[in-house]
């Protein structure tokens, strides 16, 4: 039994914005896989919920005339992991979508909800960090676009103002064209788990040269984070074992991991190196990181 004072369905973005404007205290429900858990824990007593799950405009994945990729925030993880465009252009995101929770959670949970909850462990976030995703936030006053790295403000905190709705997730062509990508979720269990460490890697190579390497981690700090210096160090270098090892060492210096009862800082740092090396090796055909590190 949930303590809910009202439950309103929005049929369109405009209707959702209107409902939110009239009820500043209202909370948005899409897949419900986070908000219902919090309600069950006794948080947000007497919550007013605005259900946006029926807004069809917000659940499309498409390319516009500039080849910019648009990901509707209401895309469920199940839809994402099966989406041909995503598998083709952002394979790392498809991989991340495939390891969220379990089948039931993936069927209900949306990528927009995953991002707006602001959790560092969000499986979809690391890849979006690698892809320099931009978020379109809509309010009755208009739209603003925020880079994902700026959207995350702290644990559970995002730059989403009252009355605003995440309406689009954008990835520019330069951020996917020529890249391969992968996501490794290191968790104790192979399903229904939270990452001890999540790691997204994207790489563009040419003739055994690493033209560009991008890496982002979840649970390596209060928000997902990239490792720009490690990425820079590998830019333009040849693909070889020494560079893999160097990369594995460098990434650790840019993380803000910490000790918790879920895992020690030392262990997470160590894992970060292992995943960096394995991820890069897989994407460059040097080894198989899927051996035992993820689903």
């Amino acid at each position, binding site marked *: *039994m949930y303590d809910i004072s009202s439950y309103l369905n929005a049929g369109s973005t405009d209707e959702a914005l209107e409902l939110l404007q009239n009820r500043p205290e209202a909370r948005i429900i899409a897949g419900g896989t986070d908000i219902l858990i919090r309600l069950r824990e*006794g948080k947000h007593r007497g919550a007013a919920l605005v259900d946006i799950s029926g807004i069809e405009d917000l659940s499309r994945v498409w390319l516009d005339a500039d080849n910019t990729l648009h990901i509707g925030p209401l895309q469920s993880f199940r839809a994402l992991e099966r989406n041909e465009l995503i598998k083709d252009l952002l394979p790392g995101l498809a991989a991340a979508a495939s390891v969220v929770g379990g089948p039931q959670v993936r069927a209900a949970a949306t990528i927009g909800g995953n991002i707006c909850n602001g959790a560092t462990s969000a499986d979809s976030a690391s890849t979006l960090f690698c892809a320099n995703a931009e978020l379109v936030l809509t309010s009755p006053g208009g739209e603003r676009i925020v880079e994902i790295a700026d959207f995350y403000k702290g644990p559970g905190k995002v730059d989403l103002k009252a009355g605003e709705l995440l309406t689009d997730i954008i990835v520019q062509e330069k951020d996917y064209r020529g890249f391969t990508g992968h996501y490794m979720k*290191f968790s104790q*269990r192979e*399903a*229904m788990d939270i990452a001890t460490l999540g790691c997204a890697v994207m790489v563009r190579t040419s003739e055994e040269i690493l033209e560009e390497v991008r890496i982002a981690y979840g649970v390596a700090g209060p928000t997902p984070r990239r490792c720009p210096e490690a990425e820079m160090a590998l830019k333009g270098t040849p693909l070889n074992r020494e560079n893999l090892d160097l990369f594995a060492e460098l990434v650790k210096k840019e993380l803000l991991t910490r000790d918790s009862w879920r895992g020690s800082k030392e262990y997470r740092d160590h894992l970060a190196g292992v995943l960096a090396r394995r991820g890069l090796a897989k994407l460059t055909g*040097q080894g198989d990181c899927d051996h*035992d590190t993820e689903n």
Partner: protein
Amino acid sequence: MLSKRFLTGILASKSQKISRIDPLKNTHIGSSPQRKDALAKVTGRAKYTADMDMRGMLHGKIFRSTIAHGRVTSLDCSRAEALEGVVAVVTYDDCRGIVFPTAGHPYAIPPARNDRADRNLLTDRIRLYGDEIAAVVAEDPVTAEKALELIEVEYEEYPFYLDPEDAVKEDAVHIHDGGNILGQNSLSLGEEDPEEVFKEAAHIIEDIYESPQVQHCHMENHICYAYKDDADRIVVVSSTQIPHIARRIMAHAFSMPFSKFRVIKPVIGGGFGNKQDVVLEPLTAFLTMKCSGRPVMIDLSREECMAWTRSRHGMRHYMKTGVDRSGRIIAKTLKSYGTNGAYASHCHSVVAKQGGDFLRHYPASRGSSFQGYTVYTNTATAGAMRGYGIPQINFAVESHMDDVARAIGMDPVEFRKINVIKEGQADPVGKLKLDSYGLSACFEKGLEYIGWEKKRELYKDQTGEFRRGIGFASFGYATGVWPISQEIAGARITMNQDGTVQLQVGATELGQGSTTVFCQMAAETLGISYEMVNLNSTTDTDMDPFDTGAYASRQTFVTGNAVHEAAVQLKAKVLARAAARLEREADSLDIRDARIVEAESGADLIGLDEIALDSYYHLPDSGVMTADVSTQTKTNPQSWGVTVAEVEVDMQTGKVKVLDICNIHDCGRVLNPLLAEGQVQGGMSMSLGFGLSEIMLYDPNTGRPLNNNLLDYKLPTSMDTPELGVKFTPVHENSAAYGSKSLGEPPAISPASAVRNAVLHASGVGINSLPINPQKLFEAFKKADVLNKETINV
């Protein structure tokens, strides 16, 4: 003290009872008919406690402490009482003096031998974080929850103890009057003092092994509702393994006649020992008394169920073993500390039982001793959990067996074969003679399955990033509680007018399939089809005969004997009536396929249905044919088995993947192969969680449970579980009516140990504390300097 005669091994006298079925000639025993409850369960028609809503049902919620140890100095419930929809708020002040033990043990005579009564319905003396101070009853669950938030409480705090060895320190605050040692015992076996024998040992190996408190995680949480019926009696509907015992505990707790209580157990979603205690029943009964007999339900959340019902005892084992030059264990000692948590529950039984197993399974040739302590701590109350202390000691002993074998340069299985209890040896601890013994066959089957010698060699000296290993572990386990406790069971059979029968038992169906197997048994002995036997899986203390319940892997064995006895009696009545009608001698007749036949020739004489109809309506001579028995069982056969496992260890991340695992069991006769296989697989899965991922964590600064939810408590999912191999050795136990021994708990004993030893084989690192999770392996690999620093295997 046990004497030396148990050491040298006495030939067990052959069978205490003559087996009552012919192992070669039976129709239903050994087959796998469809479970009686299969369709109801898969279609959702089965009614669990939560499905049985009543008009006017009220909902109870428990107000819990937010300190781990101390006492309540003030409590203000006035705002909660004033909330609209709240019917009652009760506190410790309303129920002082209602004190009871909670364990689902048979009552003991003399009463002094019973479990410690240390539980109050509600308490102001706080013994763990989440202790139960007050209860709110409201018209709906949300209102009850809101009311909890309005209760104000102040505490005086005491230091709290999460570790038993902290709680036994001299200056520790007593969690209960009488001190923090709840129970202790020592036991020795062999004539000599092991400490003296150690001086002559070629090798002495000492180590400490630990396993944590873990949770049962049955699918259905604890749930219970109670109301007063038309006769002013209290009806308690509960998801319990022990309906008859729950009734007794409540009658004693409230000092009311037994007849005032009726306990009903509907379909249950698992228990694993956590429902072998009264947990919600007395409080729920009390709440209905306080609400004019209106029905009150308490439905624990998963979080409450995980933190505040029962758990497996955490244990620490100090183990020392002396071995001679031939690899024979000549002396060994064990000191065990059991983490009992805040309330007595099963008292010292669990720690004591595992001490006996230590002495029994690999007996030392000259001297051995055990010393055990069960200690109150400010953690979740430990009680019964599948295996009852044996999974913990098995992890310690089986790890130690590998460690000793390694230290003396012997193959770990060879070392076990030299030392393991042999056929014909008496059980040195329970002093019971052993009948069937299939352990050697289990060893051989297991070694063959895994390819022991070949793979031990193949996986030697690996250097890669991913390394493989195989491991072995063996166990023995009792079937019931005799002679420590009473073993009694009831069965009643009534023949219907068409020859079908109504079977009633006091045994508890909790998902293990007892209903199905009892029907197979009755069908077997009565000579009728499985479909002709009906057994309602609900237990109702008003209707069903007395049985102490489902625990100790006793049900099939002990209640099976009662079903057999009732079926034999009923059959005699049928044959007597048939003999009169047919004008033949009763002992020349038999029942086969629901027909009366000539026993010797098998010639068909008359249908059972005609005889049954006669018994109801024969004008001059009618009388419904029934049998109603209560039987006592005074044997306790040991079942046996082994686990073999193959793992792959990620030497960089510390992750263990179980590639292959197989349990081989001697459980006596396998009565229903499909159910038996399911039972084994469930136990193996439980043990894999125990071995690799499960642990109840507490905040060291506050004593608050950290992971009492299914996200942070790493119960394995189906994705984490490999194919679970199951094999049986064909053995017949003569002291059981249908030849079977325990199988409920045994599967959960040895998989964790075998996996631990496989990890040792793969990595060269032996982990002495559970669970063997990635963080722990990482630290151990780092310490042993085997953390793989290589790059990818290309």
